């Protein structure tokens, strides 16, 4: 029983990581007032870029850089449309999702001719699991041993990076001048403009930060969790991250817990498949798949507090009228 719990929590951590990175990405963007439903597309683009380049170079780090570059590129398109051209941010996000889904499948077929997937990565092409010091020695110690050896140790570097990104994001947003301005521009851009700070440049920086984190999230999928890109491999994770962001009410620490919760639901669903629950019977796996959205909707309906988005989110900023 204890072992089952540890193993479930272990896969919870693995499944939460891409959600957490994408969720923090959305946090930067939405806190600056740019609604981003293109998280999914940016992750997919990054997953493809990372998978393809890691295969060609055989180096996971270069793959990661490529993934981040693709994601930043898509983020800049979103920025150009929604900041510079003051277009509709939802429409732009939908376009990014379409572009990424189509282009990755199309180029995947052209470059590799394996039905839209990239060839399997070997050796250094992939981020490998890191065994923390002393993990093997303490494995046999009761309770603490398995927790340290299974749960904390033995993940790849991007998993640790994701959880380090939580306090870093909190510090950047709530303890630096940049963060204060970023939050201000999401609430009242006119006030920031009056203070002589460029709304445009601030929002572009937020969108680029979003691109970097989405790049990490997508690369995690293709060169850390799996060994290569598979067509449509994000499978709605970008939207679950978006739900988590709302569930967390746009706060970094809560975002981590929301992503862990949604990751846990995913891990439980995999473990529960085909198993009977006493008194209830078999719970359909579709129920677990829908649960993150149902929970977020219950939150939005006001049963678990209130989720109030940044005030200027989704509204293009018009500097002056003429």
């Amino acid at each position, binding site marked *: 029983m204890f072992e089952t719990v540890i193993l479930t929590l272990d896969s919870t951590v693995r499944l939460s990581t891409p959600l957490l990175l994408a969720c923090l990405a959305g946090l930067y963007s939405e806190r600056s007032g740019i*609604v981003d*439903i293109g998280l999914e597309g940016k992750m997919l683009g990054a997953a493809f870029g990372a998978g393809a380049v890691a295969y060609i170079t055989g180096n996971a780090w270069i793959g990661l850089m490529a993934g981040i570059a693709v994601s930043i590129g898509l983020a800049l*398109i979103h920025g*150009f*449309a*929604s900041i510079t*051209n*003051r*277009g*509709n*941010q*939802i*429409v*732009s996000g*939908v*376009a*990014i*999702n*379409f*572009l*990424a*889904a*189509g*282009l990755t*499948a*199309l*180029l995947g*077929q*052209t470059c590799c001719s394996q039905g*839209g997937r990239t060839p399997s990565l070997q050796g250094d092409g992939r981020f490998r699991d890191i065994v923390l010091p002393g993990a093997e020695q303490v494995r046999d110690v009761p309770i603490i041993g398995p927790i340290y050896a299974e749960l904390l140790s033995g993940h790849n570097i991007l998993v640790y990076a994701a959880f380090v990104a939580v306090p870093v994001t909190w510090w950047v947003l709530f303890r630096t001048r940049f963060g204060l301005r970023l939050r201000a521009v999401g609430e009242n851009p006119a006030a920031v403009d009056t203070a002589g700070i460029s709304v445009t440049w601030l929002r572009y920086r937020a969108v680029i930060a979003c691109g970097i984190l989405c790049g990490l999230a997508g690369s995690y999928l293709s060169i850390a969790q799996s060994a290569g890109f598979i067509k449509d491999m994000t499978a*709605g994770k970008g*939207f679950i991250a*978006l*739900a988590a962001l*709302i569930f967390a009410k746009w706060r970094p620490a809560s975002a981590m817990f929301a992503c862990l919760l949604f990751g846990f639901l995913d891990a439980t669903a995999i473990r529960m498949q085909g198993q009977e629950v006493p008194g209830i019977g078999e719970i*359909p796996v*579709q*129920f677990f*798949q*829908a649960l993150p*959205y*149902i929970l*977020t*909707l219950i939150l*939005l*309906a*006001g049963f678990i507090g209130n*989720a*109030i*988005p940044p005030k200027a989110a*989704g509204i293009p900023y018009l500097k002056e009228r*003429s």
Partner: protein
Amino acid sequence: MSGGQLPRWVDYGLIPFLNLAAAFLVSGLVVILIGENPIDAVKVLIWGSLGYTEGFGYTLFYATNFIFTGLAVAVAFHAGLFNIGGEGQAYLGGLGVAIACLALDHYVPWYVTLPFAILGSALMGAAWAFIPAWLQETRVCHVVITTIMFNFIAASLMVYLLNGFLKKPGSMQNETRTFEDGGRLPFLNDIFPSFGFGFAPVNLALFVALAACVLVWLLIWRTKLGFEIRSFGANATAAVYAGISPVRITVVTMLISGGLAGMMAINEIMGSQHRLLIDFVTGYGFVGIAVALMGRAHPVGILLASILFGMLYQGGAELSFEMPNITRDMIIVIQGLVILFAGALEHMFRPAIAQFFLPARP
């Protein structure tokens, strides 16, 4: 930027044309990147979608789907609402059609089943749009977010239902039994054999879609409700001052929008597949956004945009046959570019054009 008005033909003709041209230009670059000749690709695409009657029949079949989802998005646009839940609403609409057809197909001919199928699809689609609409006004949470979530919940729900009691007994496929003749709309090829639509699945639902275009036009521009919807969309605060209830308008508009999206299933399920199956919507709901944007939320524009997208679907299928390097994913890329240039970047060319057409101000 200018305060002046651009001539109407520039606003409704030239700018959409430039946006579309930019999208196709970039698509051409993608084709070159893959190593094919874009001119040849365009030739195949146009021949495949318009060059022979069977191909044209397919184009019309796809266009029928887009008319429904495009109208759905457009009606919501008029009230300033963004319904991106067409995908889930159409999926649930399929459930409504299937229930009507499964219940009636043994007993009555198709023209008795059809009204029930229309009712079922519209009711189910509307029901799926109701909660997002209600939450939007009473709990101030954006309809975009809630409709996205309802898309995913719809997908899970339908897989569950098709895996369970809707499933044909003894079948391994996740689908219902095939409808009898009483649950099938006649193909246009059977009604007008002389046109030679061949195996194209274009069916009577095309006329339902055209009727829906007319009804939406009447609703939006010729009724009191339509006036209220447009007023609310133009200026919600002013509309509330004028005595228009925001909750009522939001809910009613979203119900109409969801109902229209749901009716897409008549074409796909009752008209072509003759059974309810998993993932039959496959993006038509999302493409409705592009159709509504290109059609400027007007039924005539939507009709034209639907035919264009129908051409892309049918021509794209032909293209993947003739040039195996260009898979059907190319259609998704082109759609993405159209949404980007005609939607998100719609104002990109405007300042330059305004400078050209409007006299310089002192």
